[in-house]
């Protein structure tokens, strides 16, 4: 049975086509901005926003697409300390609000929800840009028309959040990844040893898990290996990474390169 693989590949292709189209329109290399634009388009949003924490600092709004009110709404959540973005961080999962005019939403965000509705926005859908404790931001899509996302749209949103994560980590790691390297983020997310290696590396280097993950990915990219293989070597004690490079004396029996 290969049904799962086919659906997965079709989604990847479609999501990537949207990111690439957004970059092509601006005659620019693919960046985080194009993933946000693709989220707006694929999820039929009025606009989309991204808040991120730079260098493990506090999260702040970094960009918004669509009309200026989207940027206002991104900012407003920080001013008020209220809204779906912050809850996405705590929950470690998406927060999907089909209609902010519903009493449930007003009860949850008494000031923010009415402020959104007042600006003509009804639906809001947030996706954490994260891999476990490596929480680097939140991707949000705003919709003028109330109503739930389809299952496919939810998965597209999650896939785009993965792409933003890949782009953000690789920019921290100082590498410019190609498509395959970026797709790797989706694949590593089900590999326990990658998460274990990121944790071990964070402890060893005294850095955040996000930075450890960036380091892991940069090493994999520069040595032309898969992230999961590098992670397995780290956990087996066959490879030791330092913050700036590799240990000059790799353990016996293992040649890196």
């Amino acid at each position, binding site marked *: *049975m290969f*049904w*799962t693989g086919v*659906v*997965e590949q079709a*989604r990847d292709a479609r999501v990537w086509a949207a990111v690439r189209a957004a970059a092509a329109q601006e005659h620019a290399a693919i960046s985080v901005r194009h993933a946000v634009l693709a989220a707006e388009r694929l999820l039929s949003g009025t606009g989309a926003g991204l808040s991120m924490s730079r260098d493990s600092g506090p999260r702040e709004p970094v960009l918004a697409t669509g009309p200026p009110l989207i940027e206002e709404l991104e900012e407003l959540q920080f001013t008020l300390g209220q809204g779906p973005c912050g809850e996405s961080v705590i*929950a*470690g*999962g*998406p*927060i*999907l*609000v*089909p209609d902010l005019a519903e009493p449930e939403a007003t009860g949850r965000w008494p000031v923010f929800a009415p402020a959104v509705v007042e600006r003509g926005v009804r639906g809001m859908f947030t996706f*954490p840009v*994260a*891999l*476990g*404790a*490596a929480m680097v931001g939140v991707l949000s899509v705003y919709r003028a028309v109330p109503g*739930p*996302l389809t*299952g496919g749209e*939810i*998965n597209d949103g*999650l*896939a785009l959040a993965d792409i933003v994560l890949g782009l953000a980590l690789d920019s921290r790691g100082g590498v410019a990844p190609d498509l395959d390297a970026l797709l790797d983020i*989706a694949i590593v*997310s*089900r*590999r*326990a040893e990658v*998460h*274990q*290696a*990121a*944790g*071990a*590396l*964070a*402890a*060893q280097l005294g850095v955040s*898990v996000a930075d450890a993950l960036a380091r892991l990915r940069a090493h994999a990219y520069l040595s032309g290996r898969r992230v999961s293989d590098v992670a397995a070597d780290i*956990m087996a004690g066959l490879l030791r990474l330092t913050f700036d490079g590799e240990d000059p004396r790799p353990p016996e029996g293992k040649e890196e390169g």
Partner: protein
Amino acid sequence: MIAPDRRVREIFIELTDTLVVDFDIIEFLDRLAGRCAEVLDVTACGILLVDHNGRLNLVAASTEQARLLELSQLQNSEGPCLDAFHTGRPVLRADLTDGEGRWPRFSAAAVEAGFTAVHALPMRLRSETLGAVNLFSATAGPLAPDTVELGQALADAATIGIVHQRALARQEIVAEQLQSALNSRIVIEQAKGFLTHRLGVSVEDAFAALRDYARSRNRKLTEVAADVIEGRVDLSAD
């Protein structure tokens, strides 16, 4: 031999008790996996959830994970969980060595890991399947119909745990909780890795240290894991 009714009743009461308070989903699923192995009289039990890429992820297990991990990964190409996930029906294989030739790679790996019979029960919510409960036996033999029924009831309990008891949960809530559960598992794996370095122990011992700390202080496993990574909790001080 299957567990007596009294024990089964105790287990459902225990699981229900866990669900009413603010609970940790991974801890709940780990416990449920352990109870499944016990009352269904199988050697090991793993719980797999599907992610947004349509991939099955092992999120909880009754025993040390290493053996079950590889067998779970393999099932993204073939195996009982993949079949149970796609059909929404239980998939029962009493003897992997009977020469039927279904799932050749998975079967070979399962037999090598010491398992002869493997079954999968779907975790269904209305028309959706969220994952599967995977049962492994060291000895060949079919599951009795009432054992399958009991197993399915436990698989349903796992589903209910994920949607936080809300059997009528909207699709949004299911997606939110499912992702949150998958993410919790990742945080725990990261904390395990962190502790292997900090305490200089194996992955299994790191997990035991994490679990013992959470239990002895009556705290959620996922929260303790996050605290360990952020340096708010230092297990080496214990």
